[in-house]
């Protein structure tokens, strides 16, 4: 213990003796460790932090999956019912889904995320309501009872935290629900929601209320709490039995290609973000390796000047092991200082990192610095200290004692080996940096490609406002249309408004409703599943979608007129294959609707082709369909403006409120913001990979500068001799630059090979550019060569300016 203390004391003194060196090394490490800490904090929070439920490892998700694939499909309510029969491995089993509710108060409405859940949902999670009770089986039976469990936040907001709230009614979507319980503060099932990413559920109702509806009843994630002691093998054999049974009971759903599978609930949450987060963790690991290589290089340079001290210690009886231990102590101390500073940097930068994160990032509340993260940083610092300290320490102790002691002032006799190692480290830094920069380059190229991709409409000068309609008041298409017209009229009257329209079941560039259709008169009538949108006549003009054929909807297309639809080009191309689609018919909800127009394609996902879409006039939409989609997707007002659209946000909202204060408003955004939002994940990845790549390039630049500058300082005498022999400054400059570039080119060669192999990891993120895009590879190499040239030029110029007379006196 005492020896360790003594080593630490000497180490601290050594670091203090060279404050410049220590500061550079600590700062380099702080950047590497800090960035790693920040990214690990996100990864840990999203993927690894144990869920805050009792024995969370006993909670699993049950799903249907294609054999050998990881993509999993939700179950139907019937399948859930049957799964409950296989009681043996499951202590509790439950299904849930996701809807939105309009919660009415005295004179306004708010839209909240709700979760219809089956009776045992809270038991599966192992959390009881703090007030009242959970659901009874009989409440989740048949058509379901109108009972609700509130979140703590909603209870405070709606009932002021009154314990007497249990038993009282809340009006949701125009229907009265009896409050039966309130969940504890902070309760969050963390069930990620594609429909409401980043929005916490605030109310739970019986699943039976929606289980028999199309859509909701067919997309039910199922979770179960295993009985204590049930092993994965036991569960797997049970799931094999379920698979056989379901293939008989549900031949249409569970086929030979699919099996019933399970995985831990924790693994399911955030699984979509997992590959991206792991890429970031890997990338930032590269940055740390580069930082380590840089500090190792600094230490190697410094060990040259410590050769005498080390030789003396060896001569005084130190074993190599003791010396390596002492040198490693110095490295670790330096790494711990870097770690502490890195932790502070990570803590300071965490807010900005999360602000940039896409809204689809789950468990954001679980992303925080705590003891486990401190332990991670401590461990990484220790590891880093050993990693960058070990090689220099071993090299330092491999000195020729008699030579070094004879030389008096301790010039390193292992200089040749050290120099090779230093050069190798710099080449490795360039190789790693190239991999990172290529990744960043591909993301930048992808982003540029996406930004230049035509979404099918003009997002400039378009404002959108989401809203939801409260149930009982808007109980028919006519009532909804009356509201639409009143709202549109008020908005049209606002100065700066050019066109107004309303769309239900989904905005462009966002998930929306899909529905079954059939082409009338088709030789082989097949069910078509296409995008479905309800719109008012002004919608296409407001969002700037061009009409290609036929006509747009007019006020004349009413509930009583002939049913009509407009399709997009993709629809016409796919299902009419060269035929003129105008005048053709499709079956929609059993109604034969005439196709009266074809509009340009509008994308739901920028990186994918536009999907076939059918537009129905809102006035002819079936009320039930409209309400069903409203449970998942908000309606949106779309306003084309002559100026900055966001300046009209408040007036548009006021116009809606003026018509009906009980219409629940949602987000007010420009379509440019919607476009940006649709690129959020790629933008996040691009920014971080570019940041890491830039950091890596900076460190590699500093690394090559250090090596060349050191080499020049060691060769001052030789350079002096060369100049005395007639070498011109230009020749010396070329000689030094050439040495640097040789190193860099070696690194780039390995880097290109590594990048060619590793870039496939970005496959899901890259769009419009090849994984081995020559332009990206060439550009990255040129940027790196330029940085290397600049870094080598400074010491090369110094070498070219060596005064032979001074240099020959150098030693």
């Amino acid at each position, binding site marked *: 213990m005492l020896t360790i203390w003594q080593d630490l004391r000497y180490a601290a*003194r050594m670091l203090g003796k060279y404050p410049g060196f220590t500061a550079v090394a600590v700062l380099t490490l702080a950047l590497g460790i800090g960035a790693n800490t920040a990214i690990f904090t996100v990864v840990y929070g999203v993927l690894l932090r144990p869920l805050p439920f009792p024995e969370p490892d006993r909670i699993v998700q049950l799903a249907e999956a294609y054999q050998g694939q990881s993509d999993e499909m939700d179950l139907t309510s019937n399948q859930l019912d049957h799964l409950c029969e296989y009681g043996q491995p499951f202590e509790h089993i439950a299904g849930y889904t996701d809807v939105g509710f309009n919660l009415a108060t005295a004179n306004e409405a708010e839209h909240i995320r709700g979760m219809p859940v089956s009776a045992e949902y809270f038991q599966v999670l192992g959390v009881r309501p703090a007030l009242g009770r959970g659901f009874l089986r009989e409440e989740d039976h048949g058509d379901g009872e109108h009972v609700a469990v509130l979140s703590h936040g909603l209870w405070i907001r709606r009932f002021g935290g009154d314990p007497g709230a249990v038993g009282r009614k809340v009006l949701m979507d125009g229907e009265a629900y009896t409050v039966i319980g309130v969940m504890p503060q902070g309760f969050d099932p963390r069930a990620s929601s594609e429909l409401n990413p980043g929005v916490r559920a605030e109310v739970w109702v019986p699943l039976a209320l929606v289980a028999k509806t199309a859509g909701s009843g067919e997309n039910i994630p199922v979770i179960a709490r295993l009985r204590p002691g049930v092993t994965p093998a036991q569960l797997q054999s049970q799931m094999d039995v379920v698979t056989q049974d379901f293939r008989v009971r549900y031949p249409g759903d569970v086929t030979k290609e699919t099996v019933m599978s399970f995985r831990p609930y924790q693994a399911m949450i955030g699984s979509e973000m997992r590959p991206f987060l792991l890429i970031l963790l890997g990338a930032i690991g590269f940055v740390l390796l580069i930082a380590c290589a840089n500090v190792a290089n600094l230490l190697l340079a410094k060990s040259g000047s410590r050769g005498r*001290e080390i030789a003396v*210690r060896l001569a*005084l*009886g*130190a074993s190599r092991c003791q010396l390596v231990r002492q040198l490693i102590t110095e490295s670790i101390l330096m790494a711990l200082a870097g770690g502490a500073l890195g932790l502070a940097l990570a803590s300071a930068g965490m807010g900005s990192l999360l602000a940039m994160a896409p809204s689809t990032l789950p468990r954001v509340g679980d992303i925080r610095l705590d003891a486990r993260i401190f332990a991670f940083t401590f461990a990484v610092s220790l590891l880093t200290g050993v990693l960058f300290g070990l090689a220099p320490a071993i090299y330092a102790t491999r000195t020729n004692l*008699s030579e070094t*002691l004879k030389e*008096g002032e301790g010039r390193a006799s292992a200089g040749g080996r050290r120099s090779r190692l230093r050069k190798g480290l710099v080449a490795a830094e360039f190789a790693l940096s190239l991999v990172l920069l290529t990744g960043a380059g591909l993301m930048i190229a992808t982003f540029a490609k996406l930004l230049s991709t035509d979404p099918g409409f003009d997002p400039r000068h378009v404002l959108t406002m989401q809203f939801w309609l409260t149930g009982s008041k808007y109980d028919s298409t006519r009532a909804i249309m009356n509201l639409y017209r009143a709202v549109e009229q008020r908005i049209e009257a606002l100065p700066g408004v050019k066109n107004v329209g309303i769309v239900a079941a989904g905005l462009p560039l966002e998930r929306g409703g899909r529905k079954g259709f059939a082409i009338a008169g088709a030789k082989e009538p097949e069910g078509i599943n296409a995008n479905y949108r309800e719109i008012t006549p002004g919608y296409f003009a407001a969002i700037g979608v061009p009409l290609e054929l036929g006509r747009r909807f007019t006020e004349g297309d009413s509930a009583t007129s002939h049913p009509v639809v407009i399709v997009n080009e993709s629809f016409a191309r796919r299902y009419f294959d060269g035929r003129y689609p105008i005048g053709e018919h499709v079956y929609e909800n059993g109604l034969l609707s005439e196709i009266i127009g074809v509009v340009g394609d509008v994308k739901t996902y920028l990186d994918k082709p536009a999907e076939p879409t059918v537009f129905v006039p809102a006035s002819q939409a079936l009320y039930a369909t409209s309400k069903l989609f409203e449970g998942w997707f908000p309606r949106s007002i779309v306003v084309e403006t002559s100026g900055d659209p966001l300046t009209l946000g408040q007036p548009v909202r006021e116009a809606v409120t003026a018509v009906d204060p009980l219409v629940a408003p949602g987000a007010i955004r420009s379509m440019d913001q919607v476009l940006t939002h649709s690129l959020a994940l790629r933008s996040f990845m691009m920014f971080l990979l570019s940041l890491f790549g830039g950091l890596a390039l900076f460190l590699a630049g500093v690394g090559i500068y250090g090596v060349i500058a050191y080499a020049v300082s060691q060769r001052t005498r030789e350079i002096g001799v060369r100049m005395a022999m007639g070498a011109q400054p230009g020749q010396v400059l070329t000689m030094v630059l050439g040495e640097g570039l040789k190193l860099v080119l070696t690194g780039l060669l390995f880097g290109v090979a590594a990048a060619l192999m590793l870039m496939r990891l970005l496959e899901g993120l890259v769009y419009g550019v090849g994984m081995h895009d020559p332009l990206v590879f060439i550009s990255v190499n040129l940027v790196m060569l330029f940085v290397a040239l600049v870094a080598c030029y400074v010491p090369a110029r110094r070498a070219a300016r060596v005064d032979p007379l001074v240099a020959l006196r150098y030693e």
Partner: protein
Amino acid sequence: MEPIIQLRNLEKSVEAGPNRFFLLRRVNLDIQPAEFVTIMGPSGAGKSTLLSIIGMLDGAWTGEYYFNTEPVHRLNVKKRNELHKANIGFVFQSYHLIDNLTVFENLEVPLSYKNVPHKERVSRVCDALDRFNIVGKKDLFPNQLSGGQQQLVGVARAVIMNPKLILADEPTGNLHSAQGDEIMQLFKRLNDAGTTIIQVTHSERNASYGHRIIQLKDGWVVGETATADVGANAAQPG
């Protein structure tokens, strides 16, 4: 009495292109316990190389080397290091004190490498400080001492482990004559107390403090003389 050091046909060579260049050739030498031996010779004769081999700092040689009858040539590096650590102290021309350690800590270094317990370390360092009359300097760093003082600390550091053998390579080479004499008298006293001393020097004055002079030239032992035969100009210890 068995010699403390016996060298038989000891040779050291280095590759120089296609040729082999011998630094030491067929060195045969016996040194008795409590003897004070001086190695002399022109530059490049192999004096320091021989001292490094005797001090077990250099393991790349051929021949036989017995230290206290222990066959060093058969020992592995670890055993050789243990033998060196237990028995040999070094004094260097350039003192080779560790710059960032105080005098006290410099004296403590060899003890710490031999895992001497802390209390005993402190006590032995204090004894050494007292014995070499440098108590007042214990908290100073080497660059705060004169050359003579630094070499005093160097000698103190060499003897603190009570070695059987002290090897001194030009111990007074960087000192002026008064300081040099002081150090040599110190060696003499240590030798009188039973420590074997081998020094490398160019100075006949320093050589006169010892019992015997080994002459080296081009790696060969070319002569041995007792100190009494050294020229009349050599000073005698006072």
